[in-house]
């Protein structure tokens, strides 16, 4: 009999109305189940990591929550009707490579219906440390800078939640640090909720308050890093190592 894990929605049931709530989400691609009965919710200022091996269903879940894909079963409830208050940062940078960084941001702020797109573009360029690359074509930017532009586009229109699909997979350690410092700042200052997928337990433990672990499309854990170690871990030499072992115990089970 399959072990029933508490869902993220169960874990996070108390508190204010969630910004974003996915309930009983399933997705099938023909006969293949990519996601089965997953529930998750995000509140203002949250930092949640979505963990799982390749093919676990992380991207599928993020795409459904972002409104890019529709679930086969289940529903997504957002605080606002429009999906615009949810920022989306896909794994592959979604930018026009022949437009400059400034033109990319300006276009998407206009599409978001921002009152003063020029001012918001200038602010986003500043906040993402892209001002000095503003007038370079996006195709000429380095991988790290391009990813920052990708994130900046996700933030166009001042969303209250940001969904990021493996945002640090192609970044160097210093670029990863800079990106998270900046996202933490937004989270603390503006109450931005962040849900990101990663394959690194270390990154999840470092930058997220909670983590949701998926395996074969099913949710197998939801809680904090400490709870992961307590419930599924074996004694290790360090907290990170213990969490890593707990994660492996779960996904190998």
């Amino acid at each position, binding site marked *: 009999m399959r072990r029933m894990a508490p869902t993220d929605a169960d874990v996070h049931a108390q508190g204010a109305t969630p910004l974003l709530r996915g309930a009983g989400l399933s997705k099938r691609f023909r006969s293949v189940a990519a996601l089965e009965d997953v529930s998750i919710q995000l509140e203002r200022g949250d930092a949640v990591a979505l963990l799982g091996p390749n093919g676990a269903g992380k991207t599928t879940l993020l*795409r459904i929550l972002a409104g890019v894909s529709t679930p086969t079963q289940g529903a997504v409830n957002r605080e606002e009707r429009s999906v615009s208050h949810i920022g*989306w940062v896909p794994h592959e940078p979604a*930018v026009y490579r*022949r*437009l400059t960084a400034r033109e990319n941001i300006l276009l998407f702020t206009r*599409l978001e219906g921002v009152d003063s797109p020029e001012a918001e573009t200038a602010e986003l360029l500043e906040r993402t440390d892209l001002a000095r690359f503003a007038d370079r074509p996006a195709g000429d930017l380095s991988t790290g800078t391009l990813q920052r532009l990708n994130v900046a586009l996700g933030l166009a229109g001042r969303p209250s939640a940001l969904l990021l699909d493996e945002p640090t997979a192609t970044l160097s350690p210093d670029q990863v640090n800079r990106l998270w410092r900046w996202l933490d700042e937004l989270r603390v200052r503006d109450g931005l909720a962040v849900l990101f997928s990663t394959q690194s337990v270390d990154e999840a433990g470092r930058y997220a308050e909670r983590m949701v672990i998926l395996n074969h499309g099913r949710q197998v854990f939801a809680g904090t890093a400490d709870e992961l170690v307590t419930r599924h871990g074996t004694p290790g030499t360090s907290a990170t190592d213990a969490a890593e072992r707990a994660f492996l115990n779960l996904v190998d089970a």
Partner: protein
Amino acid sequence: MTSFRAILGKDLRLLVRNRGLLVLLVGYPLIVATLVALALQGGERRPSIAFVNNDTSNRTVRVGDRRLGVQDYEARLSDEVDLKHMSPADAEAALRAGRVAAVITIPEGFIGDLQSGIRPPVVTVQPSNRSPIEAQSISRRLESSIYRLNQDLAQTYIKQTLDLVRIVVEGGDVAAFTRSGNILGLEKSDVLVRDLQRSLRADGHAELAAKMDPLLNFIVEAKVNLDLADVAATAIGNPIQLRIPPVPTGREPLSGFGFSGALLVSLALVGVLLGAAGLSSEREENTLVRLRRGLVRLETLIFEKIAFGALVVLAIGAVLLAAVALTTSLTIGRWALWPAAFIAAGLAFAAFGVLVGALARETRTALLAALMLALPLIFLGLFTQSGAASAISEVVPFGPAFRVFQTLIVEPTIDAGRFWMRIGQLLLLTIVFGVAGSIALRRKSAT
């Protein structure tokens, strides 16, 4: 509307910024247009015609001071068309296979009939039914060639007849229309009769001399009337005379058919490829996932790509028209109707391309698929007029667009109802392909 303007502005900016693509978009249609116009025009100028000669008698007919045979007819026709000697069966097969544009048949006993003058010989021209436009042009060309031959013959006959008339009046040796001998002539007859009348009067036969007056009157009347034969025969030979002023130099001759075809090929390729690339590049750059999240409605995005293609087609069409008007002999008019034609055709071409772009995952695949699909359909639109192929050409934008261009270039008068119906057909096709593209994109992006 804001999102439509923003995306359209982005696409135009990307186009302007990509100088290589811009040069290609303007240069390519110009090159294609020139090549297609030359190819179609060249085909029009000297079409291949099967020549079937069933008169194997090798006889000649004497017309005036020369002898004419089938070879003379053939030589005259060769000035107009590229003649290929064939047997009746080979000619029929070549016509069916499209290797020749028409078959011209010289009947058995052609020269004999011409010589006898009892019945005129009948030359048969069987044009190909593959292209009624080309067939019409070839029929007209051969018709005018036969007409000119007939006219030459008529002139020779008239000259021969007038020579005979002159001999009848003046007298002399005759050798025409299979007759020969010496004729006294009316003038000498007049002198002889008057001499005879005078002799009779001198001999006291005044009564008998008076009886010769009606004969003298007839001779005088006949002479006067036959003097008019020259003028009358010339008038019969050339009831209407044709004067062709010299063609102004410095302009390349360009046919309406050639230019219509060139416009279709070049603009269709631009519209279809831009439609396909415009949409598929949104997917390839991964920006479609952003746009689809409520920022831009799918239908708006599809319509923007179609409008973008149509705008570029309009601009390039205007450049091509201006180039043709300035550098060739073709008269371009109806300037008020051209924008409607270009926009309607551009919308339909781009909608076709958008459907291909929605089905393909990558831009390269989309471009290749669009090219492979569009090319045969474009040529179907150019040359097909009947049967299943015609039906296909009516449900894709290329046939209707070609007929719109041809109407504006070739037709001496425009049937307004028919013209706007064609424009309506193009707009309907835009909607059909646009909706199909929208459904395809929705399905493809649902995963």
